[in-house]
């Protein structure tokens, strides 16, 4: 069974469109994340959700909106797509433990190409 899954795996779309990426984890974790990996392979955290509440938003444009219907799902909706949004987006999850840095489990990634 896949621990963290994302759909779609590839997404090609035109500038100005709105798109969503879905993420699901079956690990029972209470924290989920979205990361963006650009062409230079830098991994930057975008959002973190703990028990359906946003706890981190690393200065991401408000065109990006995470939605967490429940603990197991964290979807990423992107409005008015721009060329610079082209990247690989990774979903991850972890079990938050007090004072201890968590082990994150990453999904396979969604490669978004904006033309």
């Amino acid at each position, binding site marked *: 069974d896949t621990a*963290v899954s994302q759909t779609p795996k590839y997404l090609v779309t035109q500038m100005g469109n709105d798109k969503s990426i879905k993420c699901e984890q079956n690990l029972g974790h209470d*924290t989920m994340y979205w*990361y963006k990996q650009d062409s*230079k*392979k*830098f*991994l*930057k*955290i975008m959002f*973190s959700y*703990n028990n359906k509440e946003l*706890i*981190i938003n690393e200065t991401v444009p408000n065109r990006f909106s995470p939605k967490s219907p429940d603990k197991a799902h964290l979807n990423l909706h992107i409005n008015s797509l721009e060329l610079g949004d082209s990247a690989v987006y*990774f979903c*991850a999850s*972890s079990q*938050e433990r*007090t*004072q*201890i*840095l*968590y*082990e*994150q*489990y*990453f*999904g*396979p*990634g969604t490669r978004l190409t904006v033309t």
Partner: protein
Amino acid sequence: LAKTTQPISMDSYEGQEVNITCSHNNIATNDYITWYQQFPSQGPRFIIQGYKTKVTNEVASLFIPADRKSSTLSLPRVSLSDTAVYYCLVGGSYTGGFKTIFGAGTRLFVKA
């Protein structure tokens, strides 16, 4: 948050021990050090985590000096399948939740 610095790339041969060092001069008391491995077209995978001294698991060892301003990931007897990008990650619990910063990663290429 502590920023990390790693070598951009390293080459090695099968069977050798590989040591990758990460600098994190501004590491905070709350911060732990974690290393991830990433293969092409896959998400990062957890390797090892530590706070101080030495940690060892079935795949790697992590050495952290007393001042914690750097850490070294040690991969014993690497094989071709260890060719990947290795990320050093520093972070911990802060007000509002956990925060982390991934380093730029070290591309390890293992040759036969």
